[in-house]
């Protein structure tokens, strides 16, 4: 195979802080390697519509500190089917691309894998605030989301302790409890409910009651959206023990905002590595952070393994929550 001259680029799935700095890194590394980047808008949807332009360093000036993605993102149903995939490959080849970089989460990588090796080399960059992708210790956006959450919880804590109230705060994370657990540790929450661990609301209610008796009336409970809804937990605590609580659902404020230093540095390293790996001839894999280094992991390995929280972190939350 000859030298790779043109690479397609798209951001897909839910947006995540860190997408813009990684786009910027890809452009700068590509220019260094004399490779042209063809950027597609709105993820795979834009690939099917051939909505693209040649992106240069002028286009990425001043985006490093911005959340979201300047390339826009969307979820695309058509790309799950053979016909859509063929159209996508056709559009890549039409634009002279023999490589593609996909920035996104699990779902986006499945789309990426479906066209990998069919005349197109594909590399993924993990970007999701949920940190649920195997093959990277941290995904782009997770660190920023955690900091957004702890800022809010710190503020709620002031109110909780002034009014002696119980607050139930629901975080994102889909099937993973990572965000809730880590933020619970970082803010000193009294309880954390995550999908990975069975919880017993009766026990939690009893513990809160005991704290009430000791005069500790303000409580923070973090609930991962994959474990339960905050409203459900609030209703149950009221029913079981008559505990009155206030509910906060953080929702999309966890996705926005200027990326943290960690996410920007990771974005630079992953973006640069993605271009270099494609030029080296790698395909069908993802770049990720493993023990401080940037390593590649095949999509097959990514899909067939579940990223675990590990027992020590869960135990740690328990130690601190009591």
């Amino acid at each position, binding site marked *: 195979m000859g030298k790779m001259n043109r690479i397609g680029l798209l951001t897909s799935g839910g947006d995540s802080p860190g997408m813009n700095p990684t786009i910027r890194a890809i452009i700068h590394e590509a220019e260094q390697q004399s490779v042209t980047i063809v950027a597609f808008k709105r993820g795979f949807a834009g690939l099917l519509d051939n909505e693209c332009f040649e992106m240069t360093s002028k286009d990425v000036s001043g985006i490093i500190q911005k959340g979201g993605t300047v390339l826009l993102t969307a979820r695309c149903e058509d790309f799950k089917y053979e016909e859509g995939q063929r159209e996508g490959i056709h559009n890549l080849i039409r634009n002279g691309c023999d490589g593609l970089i996909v920035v996104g989460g699990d779902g986006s990588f499945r789309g990426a894998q479906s066209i990998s090796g069919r005349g197109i080399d594909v590399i993924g960059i993990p970007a999701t605030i949920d940190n649920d992708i195997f093959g990277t210790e941290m995904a782009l956006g997770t660190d920023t989301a955690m900091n957004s959450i702890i800022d809010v919880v710190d503020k709620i804590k002031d109110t909780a302790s002034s009014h002696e109230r119980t607050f139930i705060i629901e975080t994102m994370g889909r099937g993973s409890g990572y965000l809730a657990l880590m933020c619970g540790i970082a803010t000193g929450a009294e309880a954390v409910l995550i999908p990975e661990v069975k919880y017993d609301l009766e026990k939690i209610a009893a513990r809160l009651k005991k704290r009430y008796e000791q005069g500790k009336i303000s409580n923070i409970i973090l609930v991962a959206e994959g474990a339960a809804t905050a409203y459900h937990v609030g209703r149950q605590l009221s029913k079981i023990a008559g505990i009155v609580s206030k509910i906060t659902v953080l929702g999309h404020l966890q996705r926005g905002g200027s990326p*943290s230093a960690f996410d920007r540095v990771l974005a630079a390293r992953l973006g640069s590595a993605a271009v270099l790996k494609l030029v080296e001839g790698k395909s069908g894999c993802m770049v990720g952070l493993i023990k401080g280094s940037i390593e590649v992991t095949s999509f097959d390995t990514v899909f067939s393994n579940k990223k675990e929280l590990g027992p020590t972190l869960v135990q740690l939350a328990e130690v601190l929550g009591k």
Partner: protein
Amino acid sequence: MRRGLLTGGGDCPGLNALIRALVRRAIKDDRCEVIGILEGWLGMIEGKYIALDRLKIAGILHRGGTILKTSRTNPLKIENGIEKIIENMRKARIDVLVAVGGEDTLGIAKILADRGIKVVGVPKTIDNDLSGTDYTFGFDTAVNIAMEAIDRVHTTAESHNRVLVVEVMGRHSGWIAIESGIAGGADVILIPEKPFDVESVCRIIRRRHETVNDFSIVVVAEGAKFMVDSDVDGSFILQDLEKDDFGHVRLGGIGNILAREIEKRMGIESRVVILGHIQRGGTPTAFDRVLATRFGVEAAELINRGEFGKMVALQGNKIVGIPLEEALAQTKTVSEDFYKVAEVFFG
């Protein structure tokens, strides 16, 4: 086992999170007391203690600094310093000492461990320059503060067509500079690991001003140095010649010289911002709070397992215990690979 806890060296966001974790763990699972030693080794020599109970550690998780206070006192510079420490530990019935600090504090911990004292170390430095651990807490907060400052000076640089030189901390390693520079989108990053000459910095800026933009941001580590054969004199730039108790000089001032040289050679208005101690203060980031908490709990585990003379460390996603001498063996510096990533964005 009664535990003594001291924090030494410069303060660092995350210390309070660590103190809290260690005390919570001790009270809850190990049912033992924790004695807080005030002002680092000074408190151990002069016998200044406080009892650390639940009340003392309530509400400190998000606060910067250390409730135990800190000092740069070097016991080796005090007559019979080490003997006094050992004697005071016995008097205060401290069975095991948890020393939290950078290479100096941990160096003393190592001397004590060699004398048969039960010691566990916890690494602490915003500079991230200790080998053996992927990260130290406080570093992430410092990098975020420096990055925000770079974000802010961008607007001024842009509006006034200026070169802005931002001098950051980091002692003899370039970690804070390289990470905040990458994260802040700096156009040139200068670190101690890569001695530079002013002319090549000017060349990068000139090229940038001819093609892309009329302003530039230069991030320089306080420990960065000019190349030996460069036409600007001097290797390390020192604020003054006074050394602290551990024999360290105070770095700083390279930003001023650099800005002056750039202005002189290129005729572009240049300004310097020296971030200094704002990089150490403030509320710790989520990463630093979690890391400090995990360090605190692991330190308790090491004590329970009787693994003394060790230091807790982060390796990959795991917290492990490593021999103190391993951590002190060498300064962790910025690797060639890491620097290459930064270089992609120069100019």
